């Protein structure tokens, strides 16, 4: 709940500003991003193997592994450059890893500095620094190196565990 408050407030402020400045309403833009939260579902096959599939979340309880999926699509007519997708990790979740088949995201433990987890440090209560662990991750992001052509789309995903 807490996580949602700042963004709700931001939207309210943006709408107010738009009204005052009489600026055109924010268009959906050429980039559409959709977010899905899925749970891993394990199914035992007759041959003794277990297959893992993703299903939309019906129920999550602490300890469940969930997968956040981001789909993007360029709905415009022009290529889009410098596309960055950023996903703050909800505070009730602990980041684990990129989802299977997804490129690894850059991660951040403060929402400002991004990089590989192994390169990040966290300040301790004693004033020192320690290596960051997946539990420390506050944001993940993907930066696309090449422009997204008109009509192109793609998907990124990461795994987390409900605390």
């Amino acid at each position, binding site marked *: 709940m807490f996580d*949602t408050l700042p*963004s709700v407030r931001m939207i309210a402020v943006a709408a107010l500003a738009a009204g005052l400045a009489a600026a055109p309403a924010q268009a959906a833009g050429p980039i559409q*991003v959709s977010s899905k939260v899925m749970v891993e579902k394990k199914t035992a096959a007759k041959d003794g193997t277990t297959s893992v599939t993703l299903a939309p979340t019906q*129920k999550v*309880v*602490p300890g469940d592994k969930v997968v956040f999926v981001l789909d993007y699509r360029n709905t415009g007519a022009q290529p889009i450059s410098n596309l960055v997708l950023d996903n703050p990790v909800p505070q009730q979740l602990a980041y684990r890893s990129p989802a299977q088949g997804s490129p690894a995201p850059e991660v951040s433990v403060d929402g400002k500095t991004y990089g590989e987890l192994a390169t990040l440090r966290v300040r301790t209560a004693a004033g020192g620094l320690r290596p960051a662990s997946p539990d420390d991750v506050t944001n993940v992001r993907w930066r696309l190196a090449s422009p997204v052509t008109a009509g192109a789309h793609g998907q990124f995903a990461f795994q987390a565990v*409900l605390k």
Partner: protein
Amino acid sequence: MSSARTGKERLWPLRHRVQSSFCVLTIAVAYGVGLAHAETVAGTVITNTATASFSQDGKDVSTSSNPVSTPVSERLDVSVAALVPRTAIDRDAAISAVGFRVTNTGNGAEAFRLDANIDQPAATVKGFALDTDNNGIYDPAVDTLLDEAVTPKLAAGAAQGIFVLVANAAAAGVDIAVSAGATAVTGSGAPGTVFPARGDGGVDAVVGKTGADARAQALLTPTATVPTLAKAQSVVAPDGSTRAVRGATITYTLTAHFNGRTPGAVIADPIPQGTGYVAGSLMLDGGRLSDGADADAGTFDGSRISVALGDVGDAGDHVITFKTIIQ
């Protein structure tokens, strides 16, 4: 006529030994409230929104994804543990209380239905009480009786002490195994069983690994408070008087009082200096005992008498008498 003196001040020459095969401890227990890592509580709504930023026509633009809201379901789990493995039966109390700790290991507020059973038909389970002051000791004046065998709602991670109240515990005369169970009121069963919309705030409730049903066992143990031993003596002089003169016979009477089952009881008494044991005078409960170390319980080893009562089964008195002559 003979004079008789009875009293504790006469116990100094007496040694008694009561062996006990167990000891009973009463331990005050503080209950931990809350788990080390607080879990996300049932009903919390997790919202995820991603942001895309990009360049368009030389300007930085950003746009948000749809927010996805995921309510956290309630996981039903419970654990039960005995406060102490053994509780002594209080013979003076009508009720013996056996303490357990019920911990809500789920992530929602949950009440638990209690049940208890015992393995001795002589005793009966009379009900349950809450350890209201959480001190691990049953106090009828403080600890609330539960009209129905259901705990109040416990917050996620919280623990509550409860007592199983057992009547006629002493009548059994042996250890009583008391088993206490707690079952989530919302529902229990195979892990993964779903109770739609029955969780906190209307979310689904899901049975966790414990099956939302747990139990533990503790023993109610008959124990004697320390047996008491009283010693009396009477003197008869050769002239028929009660004067303690040379040649007078002293009859000692040892009365051992047991409050209940007492294993391995032995009573021994040294012969006072200046007196001589009268051979063959040792008696137990009116029956004569031989002085030799043989099949019967009594012995005289030249300096003291000893009577091995063995395992005393019931509360009651045993009376030992012997005679000495003043030299």
